[in-house]
Each structure stands twice: as C-alpha cells, then as structure tokens.
C-alpha cells in the first residue's frame, strides 16, 4: 500500500470531493423541487398532467442513469448548437461543460424517484386532516401549501435520507462525461501512477464517511421535527 501520491494530488482530490458534494446538493435541491410538481401532478385531477408525470417517472426509473446521462450529454448536447440564439448567450460557456449535463441528468433522475415517493406520502396523509383544513375555510391551494405538502414531506423524511445516499452513490458515473469529480480524480491518479487499489480505497472511504454524515444529519433533522406517535 503506497499512499505517498496524496500530497501531490491533494488539490485534485479536494476539488473532486467538492465537485461531488456540489453535484449532490444541486441535484437533490433542484430535483426535490421538480419532484413536488411531479407528485402533485400524479395525485391531481388533470389527466394530461397525470399521464405526463407518470410517464416521466416510469422512463427515468426504468432506464439506467448511465443511459440518461449519455442521452443528455451526447444526444441533446449535439443539438444544442443548432438552437438559434443559444450560442451567443451567456449560458453558452456553461452548456459546453460536461458538468452542466451531469447536473441536469442527476437532477432529472433524482426528481423521478423522489416524485414517486412524494406521490405515495401525499396519499398517506390522513384524510381527516385535509377535511379539517377545508372545514375551517382554507382554499384547496392553501390546504396543499399549509397542510397536505408539509405533512407529506414529513412522512417521507426517513425515505428521503435513503434517497440522498443513493444519489450520492450515483454521482461517480459523471466521470464518463469528462467531469473531474472525486472518482474522476481517482481515475486520473490511477492512470498517472499505475496504482489501482489505493486511489479507489481512499475514494471509497470518503463515500462511506459522507454516507455516515448524511445519516447523522437526517437523524438530527428527524428528531428536530416534533411528531406525536
């Protein structure tokens, strides 16, 4: 076991770890926002929205993330230059980066899984609470905002922690579209130093530590939300 490469490569590793965390935060935050819409559309009354949301979730949950990532990076990416006006816009430098496509793919994927969970928890909120809210004169939109959605998110909190960990474990795939995340850094170190196991062990230890941290944070969060059992 030779770990002397850590010092010369510390910057690469640190940036990689930062990028992994950034991708995780971006995809979880944005994905959760999209998931709320997907869940509401699936339990709502509009048949067009319902079918659209359902098909979205089926597609993204039924195909590998790798295929989605390549579809977005190579497939959509090759059409982007033909969209008029996009090439000159301030967004263009961002859109040439693999990182942008990686973030999009991870976000859309997370939204599908989380949307399906929120759909279930929306249905699990006791009917009586919603009826009580309506009975005190809340409009349906206010019931959704004040009662239905907060309760559904609370019910889904334990599952949410698991989803975030799954998402963390999905991130290293982005190295296949030239993003230098933590795994990408380990891959480069392997190519440079011809060491196979040491970089992988270091990276694996980082993921385990981060997983542990996430479970602890969510444990705190769950304890902080008052709940009567």
């Amino acid at each position, binding site marked *: 076991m030779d770990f002397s490469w850590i010092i010369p490569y510390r910057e690469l590793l640190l940036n990689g770890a930062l990028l992994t965390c950034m991708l995780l935060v971006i995809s979880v935050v944005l994905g959760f926002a999209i998931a709320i819409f997907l869940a509401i559309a699936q339990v709502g009354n509009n048949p067009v929205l319902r079918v659209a949301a359902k098909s979205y979730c089926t597609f993204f949950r039924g195909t590998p993330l*790798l295929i989605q990532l390549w579809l977005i990076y190579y497939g959509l990416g090759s059409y982007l230059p033909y969209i008029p006006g996009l090439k000159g816009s301030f967004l263009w430098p961002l859109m040439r980066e693999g990182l942008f496509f990686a973030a999009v793919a991870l976000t859309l994927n997370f939204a599908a899984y989380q949307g399906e969970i929120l759909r279930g928890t929306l249905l699990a909120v006791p009917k009586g609470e919603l009826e009580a809210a309506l009975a005190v004169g809340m409009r349906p939109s206010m019931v959704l905002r004040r009662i239905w959605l907060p309760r559904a998110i609370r019910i889904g909190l334990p599952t949410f922690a698991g989803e975030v960990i799954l998402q963390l474990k999905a991130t290293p795939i982005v190295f296949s579209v030239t993003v230098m995340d933590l795994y990408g850094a380990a891959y480069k170190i392997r190519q440079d130093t011809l060491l196979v196991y040491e970089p992988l062990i270091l990276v*694996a230890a980082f993921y*385990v530590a981060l997983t542990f941290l996430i479970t602890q944070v969510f444990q705190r969060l769950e304890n902080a939300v008052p709940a009567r059992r």
Partner: protein
Amino acid sequence: MNSSNSIFQLLSITPPGWGGVLLTGALATLLISFGAYLVGMALGLFGALGKLGGVGPIRLALNFYTTVVRAVPELVLIVALYYAGTDGLNRVLSWAGIGPVEVNGLVAAIAVLGFVQGAYMTEVLRGAILSIPVGQLEAAKAFGMRPALRFRRIILPSLIPNALPGFANLWLSVIKDSALIAVVGYQELALAARVAASNTKQYMLFFLAAAALYLAITIISNLLFSALEAHFRRGQRPIH
C-alpha cells in the same frame, strides 16, 4: 431530421443497421443481470442465515460486508472488484504454477455484480425471515422438525411473499447497475448503444433505442413480479 427510412436502416438487424448489435447487447444485459441475481441470491441466503444464527466472528464479517458494499458507490465497487478479482485470480494461478489467464468478461461481470447484489439480498432476506411469526417456528420445532425441514416447509414458503417486493426492487436495480459494466469495457446494452452511436454519429437515436429496450425489460419484469406476488400471496388476507 432523419427520414423515417434511414432510421429503419440504422436500426435494422442485419449489418448495415445496428439493431442486431443492440439486441445482442440487450441479451448480454439480461444474461449478466440474471447470473448476478442468482449469485446474489445464494450469497444473500447464506448471509441472512449467518447474520441471524451465526457465531460472533461470522456475524461481524457479514455486517462489515453488507455495510461497506451498501455504502460505497456501485461504480467504485465494480471497478475495484473487477481489477482485484482478475488480479487476485492470476496471482493465485501463477502461485500454483499456471500462467495468467484472460478472465472471461461475462463471468467477471456476473461475479462482481453478484457480490454487490449479495449484500442487498442479505438484508432483504434477513428482514423477510424476521417477519415470520415466531410462534410458527416454535410450533415447527415442537413437532420435532429438524432445521433443514423447518427451513424447507415453514421458513421458505412464508418468506417468499415477504421477500418478493425486495426481490423485485433488486432485480430492477441489477438491470440498471449492469449498465455500469460498460465502464470496464464489456459490451452489454449500454456499451453497444455507445458503439453504435459513435460509429454513426446518431447519438440521440441509439441512446433512445437503448433506453426503450431497458424500459421494455423493466416494464415486463414489473408485470412478472406482480403476477408472482399475486401467486404467492394466494390465500393470504389482503392487508388493506
């Protein structure tokens, strides 16, 4: 963008088209997934029984196995095990005086994914065994059934319906995880699509085609598992 004619040409089964390559890839995906699933199930069964009834060191080792495998990203595990496995095997062979062998990509893929699946299977089976009412096991013991008979007649039949939802999830996840094998260079569906796409520059078309194949596999699997669960839960009172 394309006339429909050229799409059909690109996706046709015979060589100018790439449909045959994709279908062969899909077959490889199914083969890897199924093999890994069986390996995982065998590992999971031993793991669950070991965790529930084994002695201290075995239980400790199994806890380490399930914790580490479930906390490290699949991609990292697959790459590490792929190299560690082939490297280790060759070291053992050269120690035994046999020259290095080229490990079959399919076998390596099945072994690696099966090892990962085994950790998840262990937890699914452990949970399913724990949810069997203790009274039933005690009744079986009271009748004088030996452990093997007890396992076959009591534990297995009442474990299957409890474990089926977990099994279904794991089957879908092994199909999706098998795409990661593309990263170590074995040509299953994902890599086949990538080869076809980069040869023809029709990225959108071939990745969508691959996605459609994956989707078909997962949807058909879903139907099969619902039918299986309905079969194994026959005679049980519905939960709701």
